[in-house]
């Protein structure tokens, strides 16, 4: 019995196995991508624009089908269950919450109504405690609870977007560029809170970021995508020592941009 619990505790909450994604039956975006997120861990997903990071998240949360995209090969398992054929809203109630890129708060609704709408993601009876939890992490949202969400500042909207996820106390949160369009000081605040949620609530995070330095600060493992597949992955400590990663994703290194372009061309040619 104890052994079984121990195994369950170490198993991956999310396992993506060799998936391919095609949009409109013609445009292939992901080409044999695999990754896994251990329970309670923070995993970062990095890569240039168009590498397929957002598509990966949408494949996992099953929003892909709403945009004429489809997973044509491979499989995705969440909490040891295959997710194929589940509706997005069912998946959310099982504990997989996708925080979309660009915040996407319900602009015409108040802050509180935004959170009320998010209680549809809760398993029954947990909503009341959820509100208190959100306001505890984001006292600013409590102050502005009767304001229309469309008039909040960018930082407050990002807090609300994360608060909507928090209210459902998910097992896994997918975060798509939480730093987008925020000032450096706000980015730090947001990341501190994200790290706290992971630590205190035990929520696993799959984090897509352009700001690699920030992502590395809270993640334990990272995958780097290029044109639809993983090119480098490993524990963050190791990646931070990696010459190429330092240069292309952290902006630390001596070579000029001419070499960078050359390198990228060569990489693509080889892969």
């Amino acid at each position: 019995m104890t052994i079984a619990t121990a195994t369950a505790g170490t198993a991956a909450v999310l396992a993506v196995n060799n998936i391919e994604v095609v949009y409109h039956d013609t445009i292939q975006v992901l080409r044999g991508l695999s990754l896994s997120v251990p329970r309670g861990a923070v995993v970062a997903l990095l890569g240039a624009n168009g590498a397929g990071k957002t598509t990966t998240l949408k494949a996992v949360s099953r929003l892909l089908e709403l945009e004429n995209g489809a997973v044509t090969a491979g499989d995705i398992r969440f909490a040891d269950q295959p997710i194929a054929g589940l509706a997005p809203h069912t998946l959310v109630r099982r504990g997989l919450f996708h925080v979309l890129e660009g915040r996407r708060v319900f602009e015409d609704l108040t802050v509180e109504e935004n959170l009320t709408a998010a209680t549809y993601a809760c398993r029954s009876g947990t909503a009341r405690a959820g509100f208190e939890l959100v306001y505890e992490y984001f006292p600013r949202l409590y102050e502005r609870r009767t304001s229309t969400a469309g008039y909040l500042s960018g930082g407050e909207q990002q807090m609300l977007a994360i608060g909507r996820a928090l209210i459902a106390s998910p097992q896994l949160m997918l975060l798509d560029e939480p730093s987008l369009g925020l000032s450096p000081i706000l980015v730090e605040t947001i990341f501190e809170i994200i790290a706290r949620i992971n630590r205190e609530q035990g929520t696993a995070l799959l984090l897509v970021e352009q700001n690699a330095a920030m992502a590395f600060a809270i993640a334990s493992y990272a995958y780097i995508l290029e044109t639809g597949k993983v090119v480098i992955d490993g524990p963050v400590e190791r990646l931070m020592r990696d010459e190429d990663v330092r240069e292309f994703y952290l902006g630390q290194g001596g070579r000029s941009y001419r070499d960078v372009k050359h390198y990228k061309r060569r990489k693509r040619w080889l892969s």
Partner: protein
Amino acid sequence: MDWLFLFEVAIAGLGAGGLYALAAVGFVVVYKATRVVNMAIGEILMLGAFVFFGFASGLGWPPWAAVPAALVVGGLFGGVVERTMIRPMLGESPIAVFMITVGLGSLLVGLVELVWSPEPRRLPAFLPDAPIFLPTPWGEAYVSPKTAYASAAALVLITGFMLAFRYWRGGVALRATATDRGAAYTVGINVPLVFATAWIAGSVAAFGAGVLLGAIGGISSTMGVFGLSVLVVVIVGGLDSLLGALVAGLLIGLLEALAGTFLGGEYKLLVTFGLLVVVLLIRPYGLFGTREIERL
């Protein structure tokens, strides 16, 4: 100036306005949730009146059974339309969905004429018909009982809808879906179910308005032209505002009655559409419609 007469005319206008408002609510609920402009609203209303006629006259049911039965059929009708005509069009261009509702309107007129023939008919009387007199400073004002009861019923229904939108969790889900469909999926809202609910609620409101309208003025397969005035009401009030539907409905009912009485029947449409032009010039999103929030 005969104040008593003016008062009576105004009350009659507001009564007719209540029916406008109820039908407009049927339109607004659907538009709010699904962004579909339902051009068949007038014909759905007509179908409601005929379904009630079928139960009350055809099958001889008493009104207390025929009215709820007609409303239930309205709900079923809304659900079927959403499932078979609107949902398959998800993600298609709005103009295509718009044309589907135009087609649905013609289809319903044809259907009703096939089943009941195009002749105008009278609904069996079911509203109390003892005349009502309201005391006013100028004497007792006569109010047509049918109009009074019909508009009272309409106001009760509208209040119910407004409270539901504001405080019921499903109402919040519906408004959330209206604002951002993609984000609604991510917070666990069952978006297809929200769409179906909106169509069911909208059709029930339209069926209700049809029954009440038929009780006042009789029914015929051309009563769908009422839908034209309803469109004016929702545009004046703001396409996505329940309060706008209510206020604009009453306002237009009142204006029509005053214009019809003091200027002559031919001025009714002139005044309504004149109001439409003025409102669009000053507030293009309607009196109470949501202005898009733009952050630069």
